[in-house]
Protein backbone atom coordinates (compact mmCIF):
# COMPACT_ATOMS: atom_id res chain seq x y z
CA UNK A 1 0.00 0.00 0.00
CA UNK A 2 1.69 3.15 -1.18
CA UNK A 3 0.73 6.65 -0.35
CA UNK A 4 1.87 9.38 -2.68
CA UNK A 5 3.42 12.37 -0.93
CA UNK A 6 0.40 14.49 -1.98
CA UNK A 7 -2.08 12.04 -0.50
CA UNK A 8 -0.15 11.82 2.76
CA UNK A 9 -0.23 15.61 3.05
CA UNK A 10 -3.95 15.56 2.48
CA UNK A 11 -4.65 12.81 5.01
CA UNK A 12 -2.77 14.51 7.79
CA UNK A 13 -5.13 17.50 7.63
CA UNK A 14 -8.13 15.43 8.63
CA UNK A 15 -9.22 13.78 11.89
CA UNK A 16 -8.81 10.01 11.96
CA UNK A 17 -12.47 9.18 11.74
CA UNK A 18 -15.08 7.95 9.27
CA UNK A 19 -16.54 11.43 8.91
CA UNK A 20 -13.37 12.58 7.15
CA UNK A 21 -13.72 10.15 4.25
CA UNK A 22 -15.69 12.31 1.83
CA UNK A 23 -13.62 15.45 2.49
CA UNK A 24 -10.40 13.48 1.93
CA UNK A 25 -11.77 12.02 -1.33
CA UNK A 26 -12.62 15.53 -2.56
CA UNK A 27 -9.11 16.81 -1.91
CA UNK A 28 -7.52 13.78 -3.59
CA UNK A 29 -9.82 14.08 -6.61
CA UNK A 30 -8.86 17.73 -6.94
CA UNK A 31 -5.14 17.04 -6.57
CA UNK A 32 -4.93 14.02 -8.89
CA UNK A 33 -7.96 14.53 -11.18
CA UNK A 34 -9.08 11.09 -10.01
CA UNK A 35 -8.80 8.75 -7.03
CA UNK A 36 -5.75 6.49 -7.36
CA UNK A 37 -6.59 2.93 -6.29
CA UNK A 38 -4.09 2.77 -3.48
CA UNK A 39 -5.34 6.03 -2.04
CA UNK A 40 -8.37 4.07 -0.85
CA UNK A 41 -6.24 1.79 1.31
CA UNK A 42 -4.49 4.81 2.77
CA UNK A 43 -7.84 6.40 3.60
CA UNK A 44 -9.06 3.15 5.15
CA UNK A 45 -5.99 2.99 7.37
CA UNK A 46 -6.18 6.65 8.34
CA UNK A 47 -9.89 6.57 9.23
CA UNK A 48 -9.91 3.04 10.66
CA UNK A 49 -12.74 1.96 8.36
CA UNK A 50 -12.69 -1.29 6.29
CA UNK A 51 -11.45 -0.76 2.74
CA UNK A 52 -14.76 -2.07 1.39
CA UNK A 53 -16.69 0.77 3.05
CA UNK A 54 -14.32 3.42 1.72
CA UNK A 55 -14.76 1.85 -1.74
CA UNK A 56 -18.52 1.88 -1.23
CA UNK A 57 -18.45 5.61 -0.48
CA UNK A 58 -16.09 6.43 -3.36
CA UNK A 59 -18.35 4.65 -5.85
CA UNK A 60 -21.64 5.95 -4.47
CA UNK A 61 -20.91 9.62 -5.04
CA UNK A 62 -20.70 11.16 -8.50
CA UNK A 63 -17.85 13.52 -7.66
CA UNK A 64 -15.22 10.80 -7.56
CA UNK A 65 -13.76 8.81 -10.41
CA UNK A 66 -11.09 6.16 -10.64
CA UNK A 67 -10.33 7.04 -14.25
CA UNK A 68 -8.16 10.13 -14.69
CA UNK A 69 -9.97 13.06 -16.21
CA UNK A 70 -8.58 14.89 -19.22
CA UNK A 71 -6.70 18.18 -18.94
CA UNK A 72 -9.85 19.99 -20.01
CA UNK A 73 -13.10 18.77 -18.53
CA UNK A 74 -16.15 19.82 -20.53
CA UNK A 75 -19.40 19.53 -18.64
CA UNK A 76 -22.75 19.85 -20.34
CA UNK A 77 -25.42 20.74 -17.81
CA UNK A 78 -28.53 18.62 -18.18
CA UNK A 79 -30.68 20.47 -15.66
CA UNK A 80 -34.33 21.14 -16.47
CA UNK A 81 -33.90 24.71 -17.66
CA UNK A 82 -30.99 23.65 -19.85
CA UNK A 83 -32.95 20.64 -21.10
CA UNK A 84 -35.87 22.72 -22.31
CA UNK A 85 -33.44 25.15 -23.90
CA UNK A 86 -31.73 22.48 -25.99
CA UNK A 87 -28.99 20.91 -23.83
CA UNK A 88 -29.59 17.53 -25.44
CA UNK A 89 -28.76 18.86 -28.90
CA UNK A 90 -25.69 20.65 -27.59
CA UNK A 91 -24.40 17.46 -25.99
CA UNK A 92 -24.77 15.52 -29.22
CA UNK A 93 -22.98 18.19 -31.14
CA UNK A 94 -20.10 18.36 -28.66
CA UNK A 95 -19.85 14.56 -28.67
CA UNK A 96 -19.65 14.54 -32.44
CA UNK A 97 -17.02 17.25 -32.59
CA UNK A 98 -14.80 15.91 -29.80
CA UNK A 99 -15.21 12.39 -31.09
CA UNK A 100 -16.11 10.93 -27.71
CA UNK A 101 -19.31 10.13 -25.84
CA UNK A 102 -20.20 11.71 -22.53
CA UNK A 103 -18.33 9.92 -19.73
CA UNK A 104 -15.28 9.40 -21.92
CA UNK A 105 -11.88 11.03 -22.37
CA UNK A 106 -10.08 11.61 -25.67
CA UNK A 107 -7.22 9.24 -26.40
CA UNK A 108 -4.65 12.02 -26.06
CA UNK A 109 -5.95 12.85 -22.57
CA UNK A 110 -6.76 16.41 -23.56
CA UNK A 111 -10.54 16.47 -23.21
CA UNK A 112 -13.09 14.74 -20.99
CA UNK A 113 -16.79 15.15 -21.61
CA UNK A 114 -19.45 14.74 -18.96
CA UNK A 115 -23.15 15.31 -18.85
CA UNK A 116 -23.82 16.64 -15.39
CA UNK A 117 -26.64 17.50 -13.05
CA UNK A 118 -27.84 21.08 -12.73
CA UNK A 119 -24.93 23.39 -11.95
CA UNK A 120 -27.23 26.06 -10.59
CA UNK A 121 -26.76 28.69 -13.30
CA UNK A 122 -30.25 28.25 -14.71
CA UNK A 123 -30.69 31.92 -15.52
CA UNK A 124 -28.19 31.56 -18.38
CA UNK A 125 -29.30 28.18 -19.66
CA UNK A 126 -28.16 26.18 -21.54
CA UNK A 127 -24.85 25.98 -19.72
CA UNK A 128 -21.60 24.30 -20.68
CA UNK A 129 -18.58 24.56 -18.39
CA UNK A 130 -15.00 24.15 -19.54
CA UNK A 131 -12.89 23.48 -16.43
CA UNK A 132 -13.92 26.38 -14.21
CA UNK A 133 -15.16 28.65 -16.97
CA UNK A 134 -18.92 28.92 -17.42
CA UNK A 135 -20.18 29.43 -20.99
CA UNK A 136 -23.62 31.03 -20.90
CA UNK A 137 -26.52 30.43 -23.32
CA UNK A 138 -24.46 27.86 -25.20
CA UNK A 139 -25.18 27.36 -28.88
CA UNK A 140 -23.63 24.84 -31.20
CA UNK A 141 -21.75 27.69 -32.86
CA UNK A 142 -19.95 28.30 -29.53
CA UNK A 143 -17.99 25.06 -29.80
CA UNK A 144 -14.77 26.89 -30.63
CA UNK A 145 -14.92 28.51 -27.23
CA UNK A 146 -14.42 25.04 -25.78
CA UNK A 147 -11.35 24.46 -27.87
CA UNK A 148 -10.12 27.95 -27.04
CA UNK A 149 -10.39 27.30 -23.33
CA UNK A 150 -8.71 23.95 -23.79
CA UNK A 151 -5.71 25.57 -25.32
CA UNK A 152 -5.17 27.90 -22.37
Amino acid at each position, binding site marked *: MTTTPDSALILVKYPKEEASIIEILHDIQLAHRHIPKDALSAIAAHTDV*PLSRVYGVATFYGAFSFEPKGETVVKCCMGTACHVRGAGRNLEDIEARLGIKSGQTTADGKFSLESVNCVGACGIAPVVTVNSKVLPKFKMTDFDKILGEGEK
Partner: protein
Amino acid sequence: MKILINGRAVTAFKGETVLTAARRAGVEIPTLCHHEAVEDSGACRMCMVEIREAGWDEDRTKLVTACLFPVEEGLSVQTDSPEVRRTRKEILELLLARSPEAEAVRVLAAKYGVESSPYPDREDAELPNCILCGICTRVCQALVTGAITMSERGPNKIVGPPFGEAADACIGCMACASSCPTNAIPVEDTGTTRTIWGRTFDLVPCAICGAPTGTREQIDWLAKKTGRAAADFEICVACKTKATGEVWHRISW
Protein backbone atom coordinates in the same frame (compact mmCIF):
# COMPACT_ATOMS: atom_id res chain seq x y z
CA MET B 1 -48.43 -2.80 26.27
CA LYS B 2 -51.12 -4.17 24.03
CA ILE B 3 -51.37 -3.43 20.34
CA LEU B 4 -53.95 -4.65 17.83
CA ILE B 5 -52.78 -6.91 15.02
CA ASN B 6 -55.51 -7.85 12.55
CA GLY B 7 -58.06 -6.92 15.19
CA ARG B 8 -56.49 -9.13 17.89
CA ALA B 9 -54.93 -7.69 21.04
CA VAL B 10 -51.31 -8.74 21.27
CA THR B 11 -48.59 -8.12 23.86
CA ALA B 12 -45.76 -5.85 22.82
CA PHE B 13 -42.76 -4.40 24.62
CA LYS B 14 -41.40 -0.89 24.40
CA GLY B 15 -38.43 -0.66 22.04
CA GLU B 16 -39.37 -3.60 19.86
CA THR B 17 -40.65 -3.59 16.31
CA VAL B 18 -44.05 -4.58 14.94
CA LEU B 19 -42.38 -7.54 13.23
CA THR B 20 -41.03 -8.93 16.51
CA ALA B 21 -44.37 -8.52 18.28
CA ALA B 22 -46.26 -10.05 15.35
CA ARG B 23 -44.02 -13.09 15.00
CA ARG B 24 -44.16 -13.75 18.70
CA ALA B 25 -47.95 -13.72 18.46
CA GLY B 26 -47.80 -16.18 15.58
CA VAL B 27 -48.83 -13.69 12.89
CA GLU B 28 -47.06 -14.25 9.58
CA ILE B 29 -45.44 -11.32 7.83
CA PRO B 30 -43.23 -12.08 4.80
CA THR B 31 -39.66 -10.75 4.78
CA LEU B 32 -36.67 -11.08 2.46
CA CYS B 33 -34.05 -8.67 3.82
CA HIS B 34 -34.60 -9.41 7.51
CA HIS B 35 -32.02 -11.50 9.35
CA GLU B 36 -31.96 -12.07 13.10
CA ALA B 37 -28.20 -11.65 13.35
CA VAL B 38 -28.08 -8.10 12.01
CA GLU B 39 -29.90 -4.76 12.10
CA ASP B 40 -32.87 -4.30 9.80
CA SER B 41 -32.57 -2.03 6.79
CA GLY B 42 -36.10 -1.92 5.41
CA ALA B 43 -34.81 -2.46 1.87
CA CYS B 44 -37.08 -5.15 0.43
CA ARG B 45 -40.40 -3.61 1.62
CA MET B 46 -42.04 -7.05 1.75
CA CYS B 47 -42.96 -6.67 5.42
CA MET B 48 -45.11 -3.60 4.71
CA VAL B 49 -48.16 -3.43 6.94
CA GLU B 50 -51.00 -0.93 7.20
CA ILE B 51 -51.09 0.90 10.52
CA ARG B 52 -53.21 3.39 12.36
CA GLU B 53 -51.72 5.26 15.28
CA ALA B 54 -53.63 6.19 18.42
CA GLY B 55 -55.73 9.28 17.89
CA TRP B 56 -55.91 8.99 14.11
CA ASP B 57 -59.22 9.23 12.25
CA GLU B 58 -61.00 5.98 11.34
CA ASP B 59 -59.95 6.17 7.70
CA ARG B 60 -56.42 7.42 8.13
CA THR B 61 -53.75 4.78 7.74
CA LYS B 62 -50.16 4.52 6.61
CA LEU B 63 -48.02 1.78 5.10
CA VAL B 64 -44.82 1.10 7.05
CA THR B 65 -42.24 -1.68 7.18
CA ALA B 66 -42.92 -3.88 10.21
CA CYS B 67 -39.20 -4.65 10.62
CA LEU B 68 -38.42 -1.07 11.59
CA PHE B 69 -41.63 0.45 12.91
CA PRO B 70 -41.52 0.66 16.71
CA VAL B 71 -44.54 -0.54 18.66
CA GLU B 72 -46.47 2.14 20.53
CA GLU B 73 -49.50 2.34 22.78
CA GLY B 74 -52.75 2.24 20.83
CA LEU B 75 -51.21 1.01 17.56
CA SER B 76 -53.45 -0.90 15.19
CA VAL B 77 -51.87 -3.08 12.50
CA GLN B 78 -53.29 -4.82 9.44
CA THR B 79 -50.82 -7.31 8.01
CA ASP B 80 -52.86 -8.47 5.04
CA SER B 81 -55.12 -5.61 3.90
CA PRO B 82 -55.91 -5.11 0.19
CA GLU B 83 -53.48 -2.18 0.03
CA VAL B 84 -50.74 -4.29 1.63
CA ARG B 85 -51.37 -7.21 -0.68
CA ARG B 86 -51.37 -5.01 -3.75
CA THR B 87 -48.12 -3.32 -2.78
CA ARG B 88 -46.41 -6.63 -1.93
CA LYS B 89 -47.57 -8.03 -5.25
CA GLU B 90 -46.16 -5.08 -7.15
CA ILE B 91 -42.83 -5.40 -5.35
CA LEU B 92 -42.66 -9.09 -6.20
CA GLU B 93 -43.41 -8.34 -9.86
CA LEU B 94 -40.38 -6.06 -9.85
CA LEU B 95 -38.17 -8.57 -8.01
CA LEU B 96 -39.19 -11.39 -10.29
CA ALA B 97 -38.15 -9.35 -13.33
CA ARG B 98 -34.81 -8.69 -11.64
CA SER B 99 -34.16 -12.28 -10.52
CA PRO B 100 -36.54 -14.66 -12.33
CA GLU B 101 -34.65 -17.76 -11.15
CA ALA B 102 -34.47 -16.87 -7.46
CA GLU B 103 -36.42 -19.58 -5.68
CA ALA B 104 -37.35 -17.56 -2.60
CA VAL B 105 -38.78 -14.82 -4.81
CA ARG B 106 -40.72 -17.25 -6.99
CA VAL B 107 -42.30 -18.97 -4.00
CA LEU B 108 -43.33 -15.70 -2.41
CA ALA B 109 -44.53 -14.30 -5.74
CA ALA B 110 -46.73 -17.33 -6.31
CA LYS B 111 -48.38 -16.71 -2.92
CA TYR B 112 -49.43 -13.28 -4.23
CA GLY B 113 -50.64 -14.58 -7.57
CA VAL B 114 -47.58 -13.64 -9.57
CA GLU B 115 -46.49 -16.56 -11.73
CA SER B 116 -44.38 -14.47 -14.06
CA SER B 117 -43.46 -10.81 -14.11
CA PRO B 118 -45.31 -8.36 -16.38
CA TYR B 119 -41.90 -6.76 -16.90
CA PRO B 120 -39.12 -8.19 -19.06
CA ASP B 121 -36.49 -10.34 -17.32
CA ARG B 122 -33.20 -8.70 -16.48
CA GLU B 123 -30.40 -9.97 -18.68
CA ASP B 124 -26.64 -10.25 -18.40
CA ALA B 125 -26.52 -9.83 -14.65
CA GLU B 126 -23.31 -10.68 -12.83
CA LEU B 127 -25.19 -12.09 -9.85
CA PRO B 128 -28.57 -13.04 -11.36
CA ASN B 129 -30.19 -14.12 -8.12
CA CYS B 130 -29.03 -11.20 -6.04
CA ILE B 131 -31.97 -9.06 -4.93
CA LEU B 132 -29.73 -6.59 -3.08
CA CYS B 133 -31.32 -7.39 0.25
CA GLY B 134 -27.96 -6.56 1.82
CA ILE B 135 -27.96 -9.38 4.37
CA CYS B 136 -24.54 -10.58 3.21
CA THR B 137 -22.90 -7.17 3.52
CA ARG B 138 -24.56 -6.43 6.84
CA VAL B 139 -23.38 -9.79 8.20
CA CYS B 140 -19.83 -9.35 6.90
CA GLN B 141 -19.57 -5.75 8.14
CA ALA B 142 -21.11 -6.29 11.55
CA LEU B 143 -19.96 -9.80 12.41
CA VAL B 144 -16.91 -10.69 10.34
CA THR B 145 -14.22 -8.63 8.59
CA GLY B 146 -16.13 -6.21 6.34
CA ALA B 147 -14.62 -7.67 3.17
CA ILE B 148 -17.66 -7.06 0.97
CA THR B 149 -19.91 -4.07 0.53
CA MET B 150 -22.56 -2.56 -1.68
CA SER B 151 -20.95 -0.29 -4.23
CA GLU B 152 -22.22 2.16 -6.86
CA ARG B 153 -25.78 3.41 -6.55
CA GLY B 154 -29.21 3.01 -8.12
CA PRO B 155 -29.40 0.67 -11.12
CA ASN B 156 -25.68 -0.13 -10.90
CA LYS B 157 -25.70 -1.10 -7.24
CA ILE B 158 -23.81 -4.35 -6.74
CA VAL B 159 -22.51 -6.52 -3.94
CA GLY B 160 -18.93 -7.68 -3.70
CA PRO B 161 -15.37 -6.92 -2.68
CA PRO B 162 -13.75 -3.61 -3.71
CA PHE B 163 -13.09 -3.34 -7.44
CA GLY B 164 -14.64 -6.80 -7.81
CA GLU B 165 -11.23 -8.21 -7.02
CA ALA B 166 -10.11 -10.75 -4.47
CA ALA B 167 -10.13 -9.03 -1.11
CA ASP B 168 -7.38 -9.34 1.49
CA ALA B 169 -10.00 -8.97 4.20
CA CYS B 170 -12.05 -11.97 3.05
CA ILE B 171 -11.48 -15.04 5.20
CA GLY B 172 -13.60 -17.36 3.10
CA CYS B 173 -15.97 -18.10 5.97
CA MET B 174 -19.06 -18.13 3.71
CA ALA B 175 -21.18 -16.29 6.28
CA CYS B 176 -22.39 -14.21 3.32
CA ALA B 177 -23.33 -17.13 1.09
CA SER B 178 -25.02 -19.10 3.84
CA SER B 179 -27.14 -16.18 5.00
CA CYS B 180 -28.21 -15.22 1.45
CA PRO B 181 -31.96 -15.86 1.01
CA THR B 182 -31.65 -16.53 -2.72
CA ASN B 183 -28.37 -18.46 -2.93
CA ALA B 184 -27.00 -15.72 -5.10
CA ILE B 185 -23.35 -15.94 -4.08
CA PRO B 186 -21.35 -18.53 -6.03
CA VAL B 187 -19.11 -20.75 -3.91
CA GLU B 188 -17.02 -23.66 -5.11
CA ASP B 189 -16.11 -26.20 -2.46
CA THR B 190 -13.84 -29.03 -3.67
CA GLY B 191 -13.33 -30.62 -0.24
CA THR B 192 -9.80 -29.30 -0.01
CA THR B 193 -10.32 -25.80 -1.36
CA ARG B 194 -13.02 -23.17 -1.39
CA THR B 195 -13.37 -20.45 -4.02
CA ILE B 196 -15.49 -17.43 -3.23
CA TRP B 197 -15.40 -13.79 -4.37
CA GLY B 198 -12.51 -14.49 -6.71
CA ARG B 199 -10.22 -16.04 -4.12
CA THR B 200 -9.31 -19.67 -3.54
CA PHE B 201 -8.70 -20.76 0.04
CA ASP B 202 -7.30 -23.99 1.40
CA LEU B 203 -9.68 -25.85 3.68
CA VAL B 204 -8.11 -27.11 6.88
CA PRO B 205 -8.94 -30.79 7.51
CA CYS B 206 -10.36 -31.92 10.85
CA ALA B 207 -7.54 -33.03 13.15
CA ILE B 208 -9.54 -36.15 14.05
CA CYS B 209 -11.42 -37.37 10.97
CA GLY B 210 -9.95 -35.30 8.12
CA ALA B 211 -13.26 -33.77 6.99
CA PRO B 212 -13.01 -30.11 5.88
CA THR B 213 -13.52 -27.61 8.71
CA GLY B 214 -12.88 -24.00 7.72
CA THR B 215 -10.28 -22.00 5.85
CA ARG B 216 -6.93 -21.25 7.46
CA GLU B 217 -7.77 -17.54 7.50
CA GLN B 218 -11.18 -18.17 9.05
CA ILE B 219 -9.72 -20.35 11.79
CA ASP B 220 -6.99 -17.86 12.60
CA TRP B 221 -9.57 -15.08 12.72
CA LEU B 222 -11.82 -17.04 15.07
CA ALA B 223 -8.84 -17.84 17.28
CA LYS B 224 -7.84 -14.18 17.47
CA LYS B 225 -11.40 -13.05 18.10
CA THR B 226 -12.10 -15.55 20.87
CA GLY B 227 -8.64 -15.70 22.38
CA ARG B 228 -8.67 -19.47 22.04
CA ALA B 229 -6.03 -21.65 20.37
CA ALA B 230 -6.43 -22.19 16.63
CA ALA B 231 -6.39 -25.92 17.30
CA ASP B 232 -9.78 -25.57 19.02
CA PHE B 233 -11.27 -24.75 15.64
CA GLU B 234 -9.47 -27.41 13.63
CA ILE B 235 -12.06 -29.99 14.61
CA CYS B 236 -15.21 -30.58 12.60
CA VAL B 237 -18.62 -30.17 14.21
CA ALA B 238 -19.33 -33.91 14.29
CA CYS B 239 -16.08 -34.76 16.03
CA LYS B 240 -16.43 -31.88 18.45
CA THR B 241 -19.89 -33.04 19.45
CA LYS B 242 -18.61 -36.58 20.01
CA ALA B 243 -15.61 -35.35 21.97
CA THR B 244 -17.40 -32.97 24.30
CA GLY B 245 -20.88 -34.43 24.52
CA GLU B 246 -22.21 -30.89 23.96
CA VAL B 247 -24.12 -29.68 20.96
CA TRP B 248 -22.06 -27.45 18.69
CA HIS B 249 -23.63 -25.18 16.13
CA ARG B 250 -22.05 -24.42 12.82
CA ILE B 251 -21.15 -20.76 12.57
CA SER B 252 -20.73 -21.35 8.90
CA TRP B 253 -20.03 -24.22 6.59
